[in-house]
């Protein structure tokens, strides 16, 4: 039943959405133009703008119309600081580290806001009166009209800046070709700075001006900036295209959410982006003709400091302690949580440390495994074999599918996995049949050593923590053992070759595309197993547990722990989790801030992570026969991205 009479309202609403999407998308496009990075941290600046509106105009009684004079320079300045202090340093390490840095900054900013203002939503009332205008039969919040109006003004201003002023022309020149532009006298550093400042101004203003429309939460800007990112990429950076597309997306969203899809309308820009990527892989960035390896940036594949055989024994000894000795159940709890996380991080390491393909989708596969396992055990049988196999199989198959699309994206693979995760999160929220929707899925049953078909229960040992801990440790050991076998096999050898030089690998007959898809599917399956074990421990699942923050945390733990070896993921998981436990009493967001910051530092200064550090330490004290003396494969290579503007 379509109510045509309200159509004009939805159209107007669509224009409103398109307006502020356009502002954000413009800013993101500017930065992508000058630095080839998707600066999702602009979402954090959007949040800052919104909260400043609340603090200044709401709490302190500032005049709403004057407040931008304070807000805009602040967000512009922040953006400038991010660009010059952080992105510049990250960029020489490659595209993936830079993108990860952007995500880190987004999380840091929003977490700090959450720590300062608290999680609860705030509201700000619009300074306009009357609040609602009636134009004929249509009523609309007058503030939305203000948003549209100011967006149009700003868009014209930006267009004028880019077309007619020297600075704007410099930005456009740099976007075309950085080297040539600098030869013509354009100062890349200053121009990049201007682009960042302008972008920050737009984002902050967008947050500020929309604050009275929606409730203000610390995480509001996230989805919006991602939509802006998708829009700016499809439009490939041309200003009219970005604005036009934003408008179209806004309209599409408004109309479909009203008439057909509800919340799923959020998927539109992302599905569109994936669709365009299939046709034109270059949409996520300029195409790479040379060795793709160089785009992944520097990472150090560290061999664990202690020789493998001693390590297995040592690890088994340490991990078996909680089973033999009676420890407070808190330790078992920590052990289980670290263990399941470690499985997830190990799955990422297969992609990142071994294949050189950093992925931000592992959290989603973890979630797919969790949900699959929950649904299977709730409906068929709570056999542990069914749960793990089901989780692995479904996650693995979906992983293969996603991988097939992903290999077309070349060096912008990481951004692609990021977008996939967004799509999955939105899907989790909306496919209520399987996932229980926004209210979550509770009552996930405990596992038992049963046989699925006959439903004969052999043992029901998993009701106590010790048994569950043992299960997790056993599965982790098995998976790590399999991982080691895989790495040493021809499969691992081929993956290594692809990582080193994909073109060369192909020239000796290795079908690189197929291998990349295979390893992606494999790591998705492993993540699915981790998710399954997680689900049956926490017994309550919610889509927010498996969003990109989860994926990002895996990545964080992997890098902090150390890439490309067996214990790095475990150490990373342990390290992060334990410190978070200590900082939680202060604020649940403090840990996030700390670790996002540590990640940025690790990306720039300590590529070896904890394992690298341990290696130096232990190398001095342990006798030779225990230590790996092989050289670490430091791929500290910068590609042509390196020629920055010193």
């Amino acid at each position: 039943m379509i109510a045509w009479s309200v159509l004009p309202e939805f159209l107007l609403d669509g224009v409103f959405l398109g307006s502020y999407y356009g502002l954000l998308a413009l800013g993101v496009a500017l930065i992508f133009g000058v630095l080839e990075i998707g600066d999702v941290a602009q979402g954090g600046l959007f949040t800052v703008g919104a909260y400043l509106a609340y603090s200044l105009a709401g709490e302190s009684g500032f005049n709403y119309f004057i407040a931008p004079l304070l807000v805009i320079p602040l967000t512009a300045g922040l953006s400038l600081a991010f660009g010059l202090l952080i992105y510049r340093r990250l960029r020489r390490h490659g595209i993936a580290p830079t993108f990860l840095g952007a995500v880190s900054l987004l999380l840091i900013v929003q977490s700090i806001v959450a720590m300062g203002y608290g999680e609860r939503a705030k509201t700000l009332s619009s300074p306009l009166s009357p609040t609602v205008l009636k134009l004929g039969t249509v009523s609309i919040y007058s503030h939305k009209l203000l948003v549209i109006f100011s967006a149009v003004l700003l868009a014209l201003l930006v267009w004028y800046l880019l077309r007619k002023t020297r600075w704007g022309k410099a930005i456009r020149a740099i976007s075309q070709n950085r080297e040539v532009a600098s030869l013509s006298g354009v100062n890349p550093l200053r121009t990049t700075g201007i682009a960042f400042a302008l972008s920050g101004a737009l984002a902050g203003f967008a947050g500020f001006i929309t604050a009275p429309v929606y409730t203000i939460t610390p995480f509001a800007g996230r989805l919006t900036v991602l939509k802006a990112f998708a829009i700016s990429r499809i439009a490939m950076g041309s200003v009219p295209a970005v604005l036009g597309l934003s408008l179209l997306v806004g309209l599409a969203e408004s109309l479909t959410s009203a008439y057909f899809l509800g919340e799923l309308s959020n998927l539109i820009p992302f599905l569109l982006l994936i669709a365009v990527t299939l046709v034109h892989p270059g949409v996520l960035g300029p195409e790479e003709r040379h060795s793709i390896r160089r785009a992944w940036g520097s990472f150090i594949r560290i061999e664990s400091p202690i020789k493998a055989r001693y390590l297995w024994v040592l690890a088994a000894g340490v991990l078996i302690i909680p089973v033999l000795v009676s420890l407070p159940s808190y330790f078992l709890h920590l052990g289980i949580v670290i263990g399941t996380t470690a499985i997830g991080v190990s799955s990422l390491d297969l992609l990142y440390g071994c294949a050189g393909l950093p992925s931000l989708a592992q959290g989603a596969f973890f979630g797919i495994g969790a949900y699959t396992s929950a649904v299977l055990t709730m409906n068929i049988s709570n056999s542990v074999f069914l749960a793990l196999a089901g989780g692995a199989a479904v996650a693995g198959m979906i992983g293969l599918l996603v991988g097939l699309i992903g290999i077309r994206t070349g060096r912008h693979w990481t951004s692609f996995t990021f977008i996939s995760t967004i799509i999955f999160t939105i899907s989790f929220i909306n496919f209520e049949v399987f996932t229980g929707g926004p209210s979550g899925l509770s009552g996930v049953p405990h596992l038992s050593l049963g046989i699925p078909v006959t439903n004969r229960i052999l043992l029901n040992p998993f009701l106590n923590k010790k048994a569950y801990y043992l299960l997790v440790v056993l599965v982790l050991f098995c998976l790590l053992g399999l991982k080691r076998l895989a790495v040493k096999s021809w499969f691992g050898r081929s993956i290594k070759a692809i990582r080193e030089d994909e073109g060369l690998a192909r020239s000796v007959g290795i079908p690189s595309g197929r291998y990349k898809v295979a390893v992606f599917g494999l790591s998705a399956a492993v993540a699915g197993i981790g998710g399954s074990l997680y689900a049956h421990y926490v017994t309550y699942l919610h889509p927010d547990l498996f969003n990109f923050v989860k994926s990002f945390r895996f990545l964080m733990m992997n890098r902090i722990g150390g890439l490309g070896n067996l214990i790095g993921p475990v150490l990373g998981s342990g390290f992060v989790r334990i410190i978070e436990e200590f900082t939680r009493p202060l604020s649940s967001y403090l840990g996030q801030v700390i670790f996002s910051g540590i990640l940025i530092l690790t990306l720039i200064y300590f590529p070896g992570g904890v394992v690298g550090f341990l290696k130096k330490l232990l190398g001095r004290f342990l006798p030779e026969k225990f230590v790996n003396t092989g050289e670490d494969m430091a791929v500290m290579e910068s590609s042509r991205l390196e020629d920055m503007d010193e």
Partner: protein
Amino acid sequence: MGKIARLENLNKHFDGLRAVKEVDMTIERGSVTGLVGPNGAGKTTLFNLISGFLPPSTGSIYFEGREITDWSVSRRVKAGITRTFQGSRVFSGLSVRENVVTGTYSAKNREASEEPVGDGIGSRIDWILKVTKLRKYEEFLARHLSYGYKRRLELAIAIATNPKLLLLDEPFSGTNTFDLQELTGLIKLLSHKGLTVVLVEHDLGSVASLADNLVHMDGGKVTIPNE
């Protein structure tokens, strides 16, 4: 001896730039063909077409009597076509030995590589390392090799694929006289064992000492075909 490969009316254009124009060529089995011409003549593009890294715009490619125009790169390598790249490309992060082992990827090579080659010099991989004089650097990481040795390694990897047709893209560029002699000797050795070689090279001296015939390309067209 018969033809091992044939190119028929091969064309390749990139958005208006015609890189390869109406190329007809036959390659005799066991021959060494020198492919010469100025930079930008389309020689590397031709290699990309033959090896499958690029699809042709029009035209066909035949190898050992079969049409391979639509074949993937890995299928062509399995069939026996191997190419090298301009600038020495090796797997920097792997050891020299691992580099060569990786080269034996195509299944039939994997079995053969571990078999002894008869006269007591160990497996095929050992033979390759010996003949390219890389034995003493076996455990070194490839990135630590000097330029001349990287070029040897590049050749070693190519040999490891057990090719029937070897396309070498400027294998001698940047090498000193000593390396040049050794590399040239190596290619002569392989040619005597029956390998068909097509060689792009600017150093006409080495081309002259190696090649049975010459093909000259300019502006995408073959201007002096081999007869």
